[in-house]
């Protein structure tokens, strides 16, 4: 024999499972139905039915719990409610941006702590002299690109579902498609910024993060974020740790070998000119070692460089911005002739240009001595970076 109360509760649970109304409204509806079932059962008992039969009959009269829940929910879906749902979605998305940022910040901070500990223990996770780690700081934006739009979309779906009474499954796919589409158009075709491969990858992750956050939402009466897949959190944590390790190591300018030699680079740039210059010297002033470099040489005595020719300001590509200077190739990437002004100084400026992947250069001045050999006059200084590539992601991807 079944328990009438258990039957009633089971029925109401099924209604509750399909109702998808805000908690307070759902409670009212369920209370009303509970009251109805109690009244109906009492009436049937007074007509001679047993409590079990009466409860069963009263439940049967209310009909299929899913249909009843759908009917009530649909009845309450007014235009005002849909507008409220849209508003709630915007508010939830805004709070999601904050919580997503906070989560990503917490993740990267934790990764930073781990990275700092590793560095303080002398553990070099990344080989700093290898090319390619420079955009380490940009790697730190990956968790933000995923979690900020992801949280916003997730909370938006939950809020719209709860407010409108529509199941999450009917909201998440269109929202994921539209939201990701809008973000993709914005971040691929419209937003112009300094780009490199990591930044391009990060920009492409933003719509992915939004779509992922929307699709991870599950049915429920509230907009709580469900558990994120652990492997993703771990993967992003590891990436962040590696990035921060590289960033911290670069900031601290740790030289793992304890050496800082210019010999190799200098040999390729030109032999040191000290013995050629004799008792004289060169005073160099630099007009900034940014993307555009300028150098002003003042020889002492003024006739020190008489007989010299083809004085140049040169930019030599180097492997990396810290560690041993190792110039690449046997020729400078860019060179500018140094012109002598009326005061006897030699000056030149050069621009190392734009690169899709940031490159680094050392700056040196060289000249051909009366004996016909090219000598290094000053430098190498720097390193200086190439100018960042600016444009949209689409332009970046389609430009050779």
């Amino acid at each position, binding site marked *: 024999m079944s328990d009438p109360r258990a039957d009633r509760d089971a029925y109401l649970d099924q209604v509750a499972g399909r109702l998808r109304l805000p908690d307070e409204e759902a409670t009212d509806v369920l209370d009303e139905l509970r009251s*109805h079932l109690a009244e109906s059962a009492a009436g049937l008992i007074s007509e001679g039915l047993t409590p079990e039969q009466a409860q069963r009959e009263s439940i049967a009269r209310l*009909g299929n719990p899913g249909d009843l829940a759908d*009917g009530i929910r649909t*009845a*309450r879906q*007014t235009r005002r409610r849909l507008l409220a749902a849209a508003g709630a979605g915007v508010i939830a998305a805004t709070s999601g941006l904050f919580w997503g940022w906070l989560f990503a910040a917490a993740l990267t901070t934790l990764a930073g702590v781990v990275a700092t500990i590793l560095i303080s223990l002398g553990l070099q996770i990344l080989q700093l002299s290898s090319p390619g780690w420079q955009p380490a700081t940009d790697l730190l934006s990956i968790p933000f690109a995923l979690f900020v739009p992801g949280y916003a979309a997730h909370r938006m779906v939950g809020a719209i579902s709860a407010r409108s009474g529509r199941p999450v499954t009917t909201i998440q796919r269109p929202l994921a498609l539209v939201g990701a589409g809008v973000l993709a158009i914005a971040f691929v075709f419209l937003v112009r910024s300094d780009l490199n491969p990591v930044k391009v990858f990060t920009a492409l992750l933003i719509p992915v993060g939004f779509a992922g956050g929307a699709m991870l939402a599950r049915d429920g009466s509230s907009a709580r974020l469900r558990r994120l897949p652990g492997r993703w959190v771990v993967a992003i944590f590891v990436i962040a740790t590696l990035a921060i390790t590289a960033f911290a190591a670069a900031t601290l300018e740790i030289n793992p070998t304890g050496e800082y030699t210019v010999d190799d680079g200098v040999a390729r740039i030109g032999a040191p000119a000290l013995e050629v210059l004799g008792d004289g010297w060169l005073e160099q002033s630099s007009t900034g070692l940014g993307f555009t470099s300028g150098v002003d040489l003042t020889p002492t005595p003024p006739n020190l460089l008489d007989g010299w020719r083809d004085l140049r300001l040169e930019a030599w590509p180097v492997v990396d911005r810290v560690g041993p200077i190792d110039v690449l190739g046997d020729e400078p990437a860019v060179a500018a002739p140094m012109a002598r002004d009326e005061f006897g100084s030699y000056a030149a400026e050069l621009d190392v240009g734009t690169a899709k992947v940031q490159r680094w250069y050392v700056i040196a001045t060289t000249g051909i001595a009366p004996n016909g050999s090219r000598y290094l006059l000053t430098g190498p200084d720097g390193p200086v970076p190439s100018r960042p590539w600016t444009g949209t992601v689409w332009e970046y991807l389609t430009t050779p």
Partner: protein
Amino acid sequence: MGLDTQLLKGTTPLLVLTVIGDGELYGYEIAQRIRESSGGAFAPSEGSLYPALHRLEADGALTAVWRASDRGPRRRYYRLTPKGHSLLVENRDRFAAFIAGVRGVTAGLTDV
């Protein structure tokens, strides 16, 4: 005589507004009143009664308040708003016109 479900569904709001009238009734009571006053001819599915009540409330035709019951859980009592009264008159006229039309047609058929 059982009535067509669709026909009954269409008339449920009118029946609900009519039995509530100037009073204040709760869901189960409304269903009972409809059943009794129609002599059992109209027995709206209780499953369709609540969606109808909530739709009328959402449309502003009904207002609801909770009141304690001495016989069990609290009850939700419904009352017509001014808009509900207007809707009742409007639906009643429309239904009367509909009945008159149907009657005219069916009377003609009987003559044939």
